[in-house]
């Protein structure tokens, strides 16, 4: 298994090379002139623009830009943002908050989603199942901004249970409300996935065998139904961590959380390659790592799945 894991981690290298190259190509093809836009509506002379362009290697062909980035990255120099700050600093500030928020959301959606999904699956077609279906539908159809706003208004402003915004104080408690909002959409997926698998597995032969052996319903559900039903859920969760990190743009905005999502969002809007590339590199690491963890979990959930 260790050899398997090591090989998987080594595969990160080509993935990072591929994705960063792709980013440089995309930014190169991106319409507009990011350097000109630094000066806003106001005029600026060409000589100053050229100066700044050279400062960010924007005057080079994108292949060379990419190579220069790699060269810097080896020495942990990820370049500078248009604000003149080291991208490594920007990422180092935003990353801890983001990973905390995303992990909290992941735990919330996993726990609530699996519990609700299991109950819905066990009572397929009953009231609870229908309630969960309606909840999922609402979560899908109503914009996340609306949920975030309403929860912020009720729990943050009216009841005062939570601080309405997070700002600089990113404690566990302060991040709880945003984590719940962030978890909502994925919750819909997990409930649906778990419910379907549980309902399907209830009639499986090994479950019947377990029941026949006289095991209590609780034990049957936990050991035999759930464990076998979790593969799709775990797969989804594994891919979701990255999405929660990079995709928290709206939630970060509503609750004023200085995270990776908005860092990347603004960098993309500005065409700030060093920041985009650095964030994407981190996201690649997250995705490769989570997919490894998921694969290892498969083997634990279903011992018949083996890896060479």
């Amino acid at each position, binding site marked *: 298994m260790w050899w398997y894991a090591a090989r998987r981690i080594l595969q990160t290298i080509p993935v990072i090379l591929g994705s960063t190259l792709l980013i440089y190509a995309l930014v190169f093809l991106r319409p507009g002139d990011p350097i000109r836009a630094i000066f806003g509506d106001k005029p600026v002379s060409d000589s100053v623009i050229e100066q700044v362009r050279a400062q960010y290697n924007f005057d080079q062909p994108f292949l060379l830009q990419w190579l220069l980035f790699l060269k810097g990255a080896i020495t942990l120099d990820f370049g500078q943002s248009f604000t003149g700050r080291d991208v490594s600093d920007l990422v180092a500030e935003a990353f801890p908050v983001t990973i905390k928020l995303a992990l909290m959301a992941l735990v919330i959606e996993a726990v609530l989603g699996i519990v609700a999904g299991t109950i819905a699956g066990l009572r397929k077609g009953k009231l609870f199942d229908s309630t969960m279906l309606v909840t999922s539908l609402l979560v899908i159809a109503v914009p996340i901004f609306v949920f975030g706003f309403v929860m912020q208004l009720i729990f943050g402003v009216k009841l005062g249970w939570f601080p309405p915004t997070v700002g600089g104080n990113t404690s566990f408690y302060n991040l709880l409300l945003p984590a719940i909002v962030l978890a909502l959409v994925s919750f819909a997926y997990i409930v649906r996935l778990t419910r379907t698998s549980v309902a399907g597995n209830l009639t499986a*032969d090994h479950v019947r065998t377990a029941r026949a052996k006289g095991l209590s319903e609780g034990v049957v559900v936990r050991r035999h139904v759930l464990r076998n039903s979790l593969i799709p859920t775990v797969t989804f969760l594994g891919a979701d961590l990255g999405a929660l990190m990079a995709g928290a743009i709206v939630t970060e905005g509503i609750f004023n959380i200085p995270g990776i999502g908005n860092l990347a969002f603004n960098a993309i809007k500005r065409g700030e390659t060093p920041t985009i590339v650095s964030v994407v590199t981190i996201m690649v690491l997250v995705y490769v790592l989570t997919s490894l963890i998921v694969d290892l979990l498969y083997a634990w959930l279903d011992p018949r799945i083996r890896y060479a």
Partner: protein
Amino acid sequence: MPKPTLPGQERYVAPIDETPLAAVDSVQVDEAPASQWKEAWKQLRKNPMFWVSSVLLTILTIIIIAPGLFTNADPRFCELSNSLGPAEAGHPFGFDKQGCDVWARTLYGARASVAVGVLTTLVVALLGGLTGALAGFKGGLSDTFISRVSDIFFAIPLLLAAIVCLSAVNNWFPDRGFWGGVLAVVAALGLFGWPQITRIMRGSVLEVKNYEFVDAARAIGASNQRNLWRHIVPNAISPVIVTSTVSLGIFIVAEATLSFLGLGLPFSVVSWGNDISSAQELVRSGTSLNVMFVPVTALVLTVLSFILLGDSVRDALDPKARKR
């Protein structure tokens, strides 16, 4: 001759009197009874959920084909003086901020939104399903390659790719019309949506391919390909269906994000996503919530009908559920 496990029976061997299918003692028979797909259709027809979703989808189809049957208002005629106006004769749900008829826009928006949702879901399910099945089934180098490419697509921000690709489309085809606009959005969302399905399908196939009945089928000489299509895919596809039906709604909403930036559907194309996202700023004032309520309800009903359809298809494909 030892009796092989039948695909319809899965992992336990029932007493022969409980299995009328026992008559078919070879999986190599090409005809109907061994085919899960045909059996599924039979089951589907018996399921009330299927009929509920069919009725909803029929209504939706009528709206898509002829939205004008249900309103006389023009969804593209917007008078600012009507801005956020209340319901009145001929305008049952009032007006949005631009002074357009909310009801008419919801009816006419169905076409683009459902097109985006359904087409993207199909693209993603096909692309993701195929690559996932391949990765899970073949393993080894194919798995490595497919999985790592999907990692790259996961990590590339959709927004950046959309800005690049859709701006290019905008510049090359400024007048790309309805289908041009829809297809561009479908392509952008599809390009970045498939890895999720790939992973789900791969995990599912990894699980199913170790089931006894698959081994059994292999043991009696079913070819790899036949095994994949006949036995593994039908048993592994359930999570893909579930994910896809949820994603269908998500894609309809995601179109709004692109359109909001001016990258999505052309201005002349009405869509729910666009209307929902422009209405969200009204939430703070707490007034004129009808502007959001109507398209959200339409979206909820659409996703509901597809989820019910997905559920009934899934149940039909699952032999165990049939017995209940």
